[in-house]
């Protein structure tokens, strides 16, 4: 499944047998509502933890951060985990500034998911 959201693209790949949601582009007030819908749709379809690769996200503002908080809460309500992977330093710093770097499970790559 894939979808274009303005300057944002979301697609699903398989890495080491696990489905991974890859997000590319900029996550802001314009793109985050559609991203939220796409992530929730994918969360309902994919099994196991929801692995979201953000290495292709070049920009994220508070709208994007809020979207990730919302999706994490919904995924956990369904008894599953959400794991963020491959954050660019700029995106990671936004999570740190908002004190959310400890709220999310963040790993560098899929090999760290099992230990997270």
């Amino acid at each position, binding site marked *: 499944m894939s979808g274009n959201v303005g300057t944002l693209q979301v697609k699903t790949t398989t890495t080491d047998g696990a489905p991974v949601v890859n997000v590319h582009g900029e996550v802001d*007030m314009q793109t985050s509502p559609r991203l939220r819908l796409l992530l929730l749709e994918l969360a309902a379809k994919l099994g196991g933890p929801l692995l979201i690769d953000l290495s292709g996200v070049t920009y994220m503002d508070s709208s994007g951060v809020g979207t990730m908080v919302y999706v994490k809460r919904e995924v956990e309500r369904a008894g599953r985990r959400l794991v963020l992977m491959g*954050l660019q330093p700029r995106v990671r*710093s*936004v999570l740190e500034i908002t004190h959310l770097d400890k709220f999310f499970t*963040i790993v560098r790559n899929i090999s760290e998911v099992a230990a997270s």
Partner: protein
Amino acid sequence: MNATAVLQLELTSNPRQLPRLRQRVGRWIVAQGWTEPQVGELVLALDEAVTNVIRHAYENRPHQRIMVCAEPIVDPRAGEGLEIRVRDFGRQVDPAQIQGRNLDDVRPGGLGVHIMRAMTNAVEYHPAEGGGMLVIMRKFKSHTAGVGARVTEGR
């Protein structure tokens, strides 16, 4: 650096304009001699300010006016800096009431004000003459929030 340069832009309250605004202002700030991380911080602060205007001052109504002005400044003690002003013509609020949520209360929303403050030296809110609000953000070249530079390791 052209110390007299002033950037003035007018846009409408359509979120689709945000990427172009970020690009346009970012290029202008680069030309003023700021470092790449600082450019990212200033652009993020501006993005948050305009997003707040669209969301709160105009309550997501499109086609409303937003004016953006960026201007180099010099402070006797802090040195060279940049002042960004965002003017809207929407709902006026008491500046004392503008504050982000408690960061320990994890939920979507309420983070823009925190980010603006972290990205700059100062953020001021003023009721504007004739209606609306004026947001003034100042950042000096000695200031960095470390966006893009603080942490590169996963955990």
